[in-house]
């Protein structure tokens, strides 16, 4: 027998707004729909309701009752992200989830109660107390669902029954969670008022005028009589009263991305207030990804500008991460680099998920670097140093010695048992100059056609930093500048010829020499063309 659960968030419009602005939780807040004279209250917090603020009041009436009422407009972005968060929580309980919109979610929990059969699985110490209903695994499932919804700041109610209708009615009851035993749907519905069936239908009000007060009264009537008086609507209502709901569950496909966003009450012109709000949104995004076991691989954010226009950007993270601080730092750096140029009145974050890196730690081998920490560190380093400056070095096929590549750093797992270090080969290292330094060379004739170098002198002071100057560059101490190479050659060794790309029109042909200067220092010198000479490395001295 199919068992369905329903997650229902009462006053969803208000709950979605309070999820985005948790500071308003204990305030008298009213959610307003419409503008100008048409502005009216659609939902209000308990504190506002105590003062007489009810849905349907115009904003001016509400202000007359409660001058300190905090009015917030309906925010479709908040509602959409809250609905997505609710769906994602449901997906942690079942893979088959139906999105019914506006804080209503159905999920198939057939057989899922076996995961909640043991008290040890529940994390809430209150639920471990021996109570009359504690043996019911479905009740434990429902309580776990309510706790999961609390984590994402949505006060959901949960109902479990054999049909969607009964599950929804059970979820709408104030005492949550409610579990309807299998086959007991009609019995459960019978004492309830008719408005619980479908409050939006006028037929229910008409039936009340007929003298039918409860669902059970309607179920006891003949179906044909109801159908002849109320038509197809009446027939469906009668089925519903008997607990029959022919609508199947329609599972939604898994979303490829996670979204969070908000429309702001007033335009923001400074970065810090925006980052304050963005921090909360990214925190919600991170929690949602954590629930699904994902991490963010790419973060896209769209800023709605005042009075019109959008600014869309994207940040590629070097490794999947859920660290809010890292994402916020990268966002700050991006916005500082190229400001949007107009006040921001709304934003939308889209996180493209990926599986986070996992590592198994070893007791006896070398300790592995935490993938989460590593991803964060690399992201911060790239934001400080720029692309192409952090990563794993790679060799590139070819004969030119200055060739190299840099890739994403993803170290393999360390061995389980510590190995003995390999014996050093004792190779002499060279310090490569990037780019090669142009030099002036005096040559002398040697035996045969070979050329021997008599002296060298650098043509200009080489600067290894090719980055364009920035406003903060005056505070930097440049490393590796002022490479001044000059002197008489004491010993010259060479040439060795290198040819690459012989099939091309202009193959790269070089002749290399090793030279030791009288004043000290051994350099690697090459001739690239007829008269172009360079130093591309210095033997470590």
């Amino acid at each position, binding site marked *: 027998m199919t068992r369905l659960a329903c997650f229902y968030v009462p006053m969803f419009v208000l709950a979605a707004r309070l999820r985005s602005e948790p500071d308003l939780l204990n305030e008298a807040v009213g959610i307003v729909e419409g503008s100008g004279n048409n502005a009216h209250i659609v939902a209000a917090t308990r504190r506002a309701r105590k003062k007489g603020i009810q849905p349907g009041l115009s904003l001016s009436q509400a202000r007359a009752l409660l001058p300190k009422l905090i009015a917030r407009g309906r925010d479709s972005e908040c509602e959409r992200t809250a609905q997505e968060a609710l769906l994602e929580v449901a997906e942690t309980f079942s893979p088959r989830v139906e999105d019914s919109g506006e804080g209503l979610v159905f999920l198939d929990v057939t057989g899922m109660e076996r995961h909640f059969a043991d008290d040890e699985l529940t994390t809430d110490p209150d639920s471990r107390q021996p109570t009359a209903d504690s043996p019911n695994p479905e009740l434990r499932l429902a309580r776990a669902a309510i706790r999961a919804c609390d984590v994402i700041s949505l006060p959901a109610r949960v109902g479990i029954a054999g049909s969607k209708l009964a599950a929804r009615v059970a979820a709408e009851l104030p005492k949550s969670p409610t579990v309807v035993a299998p086959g007991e749907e009609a019995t459960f519905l019978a004492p309830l008022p008719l408005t619980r069936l479908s409050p939006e239908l006028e037929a229910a009000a008409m039936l009340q005028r007929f003298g039918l007060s409860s669902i059970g009264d309607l179920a006891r009537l003949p179906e044909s009589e109801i159908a002849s008086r109320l038509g197809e609507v009446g027939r469906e209502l009668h089925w519903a009263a008997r607990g029959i709901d022919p609508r199947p569950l329609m599972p939604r496909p898994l979303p490829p991305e996670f979204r969070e966003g908000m429309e702001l009450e007033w335009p923001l012109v400074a970065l810090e207030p925006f980052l304050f709000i963005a921090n909360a949104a990214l925190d919600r995004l991170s929690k949602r990804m954590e629930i699904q076991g994902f991490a963010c691989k790419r973060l896209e954010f769209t800023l709605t500008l005042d009075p019109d226009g959008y600014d869309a950007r994207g940040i590629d993270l070097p490794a999947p991460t859920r660290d809010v601080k890292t994402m916020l730092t990268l966002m700050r750096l991006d916005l500082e680099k190229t400001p949007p140029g107009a006040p921001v009145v709304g934003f939308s974050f889209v996180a493209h998920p990926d599986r986070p890196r996992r590592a198994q730690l070893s007791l006896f081998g070398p300790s592995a670097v935490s993938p989460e920490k590593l991803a964060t560190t690399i992201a911060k380093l790239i934001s400080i140093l720029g692309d192409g400056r952090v990563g794993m070095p*790679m060799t590139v096929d070819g004969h030119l010695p200055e060739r190299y590549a840099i890739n994403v750093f993803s170290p393999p797992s360390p061995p389980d048992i510590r190995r003995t270090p390999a014996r050093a080969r004792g190779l002499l290292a060279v310090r490569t100059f990037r780019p090669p330094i142009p030099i002036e060379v005096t040559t002398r004739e040697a035996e045969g056609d070979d050329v021997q170098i008599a002296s060298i002198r650098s043509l200009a002071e080489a600067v290894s930093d090719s980055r364009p100057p920035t406003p903060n560059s005056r505070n930097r101490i440049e490393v590796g500048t002022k490479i001044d190479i000059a002197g008489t050659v004491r010993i010259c060794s060479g040439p060795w010829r290198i040819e690459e790309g012989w099939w091309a029109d202009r193959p790269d042909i070089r002749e290399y020499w090793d030279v030791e200067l009288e004043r000290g220092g051994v350099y690697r010198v090459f001739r690239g063309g007829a008269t172009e000479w360079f130093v591309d490395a210095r033997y*470590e001295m």
Partner: protein
Amino acid sequence: MAVLARCPDSQFPLLEAPPIPKPLIPPRVVESGQCEALRNLRASLEASIATKLTSGSELVRAVARQRREEILPTTIAPLDALLGGGLARGKMTEIAGRGTRFSIVIATLAASTSIGEAAALIDAGDSFDPQLAESAGVELQRLLWVRPRTMKETVTAAEMIGATGFQLVIIDMGSRRPPGRRVPDATWVRLARVAESHGATILVSAPYALTGTTSEAMILAHAPRPRWLGRGNAPRVLAGIETRLKLEKHRRLRPGQSTTVFFQCEEAVGCQLSAVGSMVIPRADTRQPRATAKAS
């Protein structure tokens, strides 16, 4: 006019014996952290068996302590002999001077990555050659290569990487002294603390001494001498460079010892080294360390 006042009790009389200070309250006995069940179990066992009994927390602490106390060999025998076995883990070691510092850096990277550790090279001079490093035995997959441009970026990157959990962090400042201001001494203190708190081995290679008193040991690499194969008019081939290493400072060993190391060119690896006139075989210095001032 004189104002009368009482003599404060805190003044010690010159002619009388000072009062005997009252003993302070003895400190509370610190529990060893053993749980009651473990103590009872040990008490019930024979002594020979009880000494071999180890709880899980004790085992974890012992493994962590062992890792901190162990050393990372550079696999250059003369240098390891100078440093008492290798680079101390959880400490900062410095190599300064004009000798073959970069060759030592590459050899240390090869040693660390060959045992499966994650290593990072902060290459301030941007002079790292991946092809040569791979030939020297460095597992490039375990090496994070960072190329900062400024001194500030260099030390910032080192702090971040050291705190991430890398077992070896090497800072290479290149072959020239960076112009402009030096970084504050507090930077090296912070870096030493990062190494200690995360158990990382930090090696600083710079043309001049940078770390001051914060490093565990300081090696001076000096007097580099290139060696060439071939004599007279015969074609020459660079065989390698020998350099002298001197232990300038060490917190546990007596400084002043020196040794000579020789690094060979890759092209000359297969050549007969005997062809070189005065080739130096790597060996430890024959001088005996001076006797310490105390009886120990």
